[in-house]
């Protein structure tokens, strides 16, 4: 009898005693280690290696190259301007939507989030149509008698493309900041502001001295995402045709067969800068003011707006929404336009391009690929994110804080940088060559999407779990439910909104993701929609733009379809999803 214990091998006894949660934790750590830290290490190492030895050779060359330095400066400027524009645009929106009530508020604030799922990459396809020398804007101006297109050179609104990129990015990314700001504002105890008013501070002083400082963590949370996104975005600049950016340079060099230390040294610099800006932002803005721990002592019932106020709010919100979806309307029109030269609207409409795209095997496969990648990464994200959130909130497992930090780090590391790491990790002759871009990058793409979106899922689910009192789960245990039953019957239904919101966000992001897709999908059979669009748009085809736009339209339709499906599944609760 006593011998049975010793007969089993040691590893098996360990396995039998292991807490499944601890095992899951170890697995997640392993996942993050192999697919986040390792590729970054590989990229950094490659940037610091010359002729097989540790060397600052490539970095030295980089810092003496004025063109590259200029591109880095451009990227920085682009990110600064985009973030500032977003902040200026969203601050009044957030204040209006949290401090006031008006008719149709729910619809408008819901629509504000639409740009989030319409990638600027696709919208940018139509930007020349709007702003070119014979674009819609100039044609409208001519019709109004402001411009005369027949004489002299009509103004080219695109310019170098810098401003167009900032505007497109702003219109795409502002919802992220809006969500963070309005959440921070809603959580702010109105008593803070009331106390200041009570002590004689004017509205503007209250905002400057009380509200704004208390909002700092919210500004950081949204602003840092916008900043890093814009700093390293490649999709929008490529589509607009503005290539004087460090990120675009990395992308172009990564697409070559022989990626050298020169590229990785730039990757290293961009990685260091991203993390540096993130940390700097966290120090300056992110310090907790302690306000969020205080529960609001009074309910902040919004003040009702009168007729003119409501009208103003509609014009403001409606204008921004319209502006944000204008590029995408252009894409739809381009996709169905037969002939569209020097006219405000197409002269003729046709479904030929759409049908062409549907009949061709490559675009069809691209749509299918995207669905597979997006579906898999969403599933993986939900599993990993929920498990991590649960460990963090409910079990306070040892190491859960570190795990949380690891899953949050992708916020500070841009997609194109991580993609460069994957390229380095799967270079010919390396251990993981088999999952590299030249073989079959399906797994890499899925993992890249998963890791880049994991922070949002962890945060989303964590927020959900924190909102439901632990006693709800304990009550179920107390009435005879096992841990599994309590999670299934009580916890999951209660955080369903958070799960679905996180899932939708992850899915829509993955469906039209740009950075990793453009870099990692290098054989046509593996192209997702975005890379196919990019390829079509840059093809020599005469109706390249229409075909690319048709693909974009297809992507948006799939996205809309999955959102609609979710709406049907969720019924009335979809509205709650976007507030989660």
């Amino acid at each position, binding site marked *: 009898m006593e011998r049975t214990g010793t007969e089993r091998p040691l590893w098996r006894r360990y396995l039998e005693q292991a807490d499944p949660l601890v095992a899951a934790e170890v697995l997640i750590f392993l996942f993050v280690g192999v697919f986040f830290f390792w590729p970054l290490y590989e990229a950094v190492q490659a940037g610091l290696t010359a002729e097989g030895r540790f060397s600052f050779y490539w970095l030295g060359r980089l810092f003496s190259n004025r063109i590259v330095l200029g591109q880095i400066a451009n990227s920085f400027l682009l990110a600064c301007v985009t973030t500032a524009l977003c902040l200026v645009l969203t601050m009044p929106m957030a204040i209006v939507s949290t401090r006031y009530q008006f008719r149709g508020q729910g619809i408008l604030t819901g629509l504000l989030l639409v740009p989030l799922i319409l990638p600027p990459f696709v919208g940018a396809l139509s930007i020349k149509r709007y702003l070119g020398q014979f674009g819609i804007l100039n044609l409208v101006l001519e019709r109004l008698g402001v411009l005369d297109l027949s004489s002299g050179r009509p103004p080219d609104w695109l310019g170098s493309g810098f401003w167009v990129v900032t505007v497109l990015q702003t219109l795409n990314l502002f919802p992220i900041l809006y969500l963070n700001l309005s959440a921070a504002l809603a959580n702010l105890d109105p008593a803070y502001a009331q106390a200041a008013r009570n002590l004689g501070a004017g509205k503007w002083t209250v905002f400057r001295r009380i509200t704004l400082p208390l909002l700092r963590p919210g500004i950081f949370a949204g602003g840092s995402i916008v900043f890093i996104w814009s700093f390293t975005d490649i999709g929008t600049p490529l589509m607009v045709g503005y290539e004087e950016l460090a990120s675009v340079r990395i992308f172009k060099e990564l697409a070559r067969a022989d990626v050298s230390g020169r590229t990785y040294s730039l990757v290293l610099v961009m990685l260091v800068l991203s993390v540096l800006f993130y940390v700097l932002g966290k120090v300056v803005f992110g310090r907790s003011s302690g306000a969020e721990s205080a529960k609001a002592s009074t309910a902040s019932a919004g003040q009702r707006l009168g007729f003119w106020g409501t009208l103003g709010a509609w014009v403001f919100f409606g204008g921004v929404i319209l502006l944000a979806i204008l590029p995408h309307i252009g894409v739809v029109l381009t996709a169905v336009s037969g002939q569209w030269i020097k006219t405000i609207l197409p002269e003729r409409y046709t479904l030929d391009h759409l049908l062409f795209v549907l009949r061709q095997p490559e675009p069809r496969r691209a749509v299918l690929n995207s669905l597979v990648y997006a579906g898999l990464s969403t599933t993986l994200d939900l599993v990993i994110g929920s498990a991590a959130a649960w460990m963090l909130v409910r079990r306070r497992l040892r190491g859960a804080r570190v795990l949380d930090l690891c899953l949050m780090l992708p916020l500070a590391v841009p997609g194109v940088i991580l993609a460069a790491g994957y390229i380095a990790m799967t270079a010919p002759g390396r251990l993981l060559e088999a999952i590299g871009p030249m073989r079959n990058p399906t797994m890499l793409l899925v993992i890249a999407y998963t890791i880049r979106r994991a922070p949002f899922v962890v945060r989303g689910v964590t927020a959900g779990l924190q909102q439901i*009192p632990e*006693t*709800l789960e*304990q*009550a*179920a*245990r*107390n*009435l*005879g*439910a*096992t841990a599994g*039953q309590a999670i299934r*019957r*009580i916890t999951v*239904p*209660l955080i369903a909104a958070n799960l679905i919101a996180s899932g939708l966000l992850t899915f829509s992001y993955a469906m039209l993701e740009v950075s990793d897709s453009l870099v990692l999908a290098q054989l046509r059979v593996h192209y997702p929609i975005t890379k196919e669009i990019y390829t079509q748009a840059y093809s020599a085809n005469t109706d390249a733009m229409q075909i690319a736009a048709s693909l974009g339209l297809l992507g948006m339709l799939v996205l809309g379809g999955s959102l609609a499906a979710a709406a049907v599944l969720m019924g009335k609760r979809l509205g709650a999803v976007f507030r989660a």
Partner: protein
Amino acid sequence: MIEIRLEGISKAYAQGAGSGPVLEKIDLVIEPGEFFFLLGPSGCGKTTLLRILAGLLEPTSGRILFDGRDVTQLAAEKRRTAMVFQNYALWPHLKVIENVEFGPQMQGIEPARRRQIALEKLAVVQMEAFAHRKPNQLSGGQQQRVALARALAAQPQCLLLDEPLSNLDARLRAKMRTELRRLVKESQTTAVYVTHDQKEALSMADRIAVLCGGRIVQIGRPQEIYQRPKNEFVADFIGEANFLTGNLLQTNPVKIRTEAGVLASEMKTERAAGSAVKCCVRPEKVQIHDIKDFADRNRPNLLAGTVQSIAYYGELSQIEVRLNAGVVWTVTVFSGRAEGLWPGAEVLCGVNPADVIVLEE
């Protein structure tokens, strides 16, 4: 109906610097069918003890026995204790009836039968009309009843109530006390009730354990606890009390020389004459006499003083009297009695020897 026996239950949290034990060697026997109260100020460990009974927390040491069976290591879901949580913990995504059905469902009772049980229990708390509402469509008092129905429907071995009335407004709370006691007693279940409200405990309990700093200070029936508190903490926490310190003049019968005068008590004490003691008198047990009415000022239990303030509470008034040596007593009288008094009036405070409580500690 089960007997609950706690043997040397201790609980300490490992984390956090300087945090002492939450519970220290709690020994307790709760009789079958008893409505037992754990009473104490916040932080005394009463809720921790309740959660240990439910199996939601594990004690650091000690044993829990249900009818002699050791359940210390038994998982929460297998204990058949049903808890009414302070915030009710009604699941917001389930209807009232689904909430109440949950317990029977977990016991594997078939759907028709469990619906019947749930409706019965909802009827007991007069909430059957709300069966198909969601919890957030109910008022606080209604949620409280549903929470009780949910606990009762699980047909538990013992019922655990964690300050169930604390989220109700004062009027409703007073009304629910009587009703809750009736419902719990009718269910014939052993019940443990946690509260910091001494009125709740005194008016509802069969027996009360007063907790302080993780220890049980006194166990007894409400009358015992109120009339014969063991120490200053119990006397002060349950009701109000006027304290005096002094020396034991004689032990049988007890006479104490205090700073305000000599007090006789009918209580017995095991201490030797001459030792220092503390005694207390409840405010409503003090009679106020006009100083002119008494010739024999040296009679025991008659302490001279000056009225300091009079607070009017409707039917009752509270008078603060400054006795000799600066001791201030609070005296509660019917308001009519206070009418002839004014701040500065000289009075005599009289106490019946049966009402002078000699504290043990």
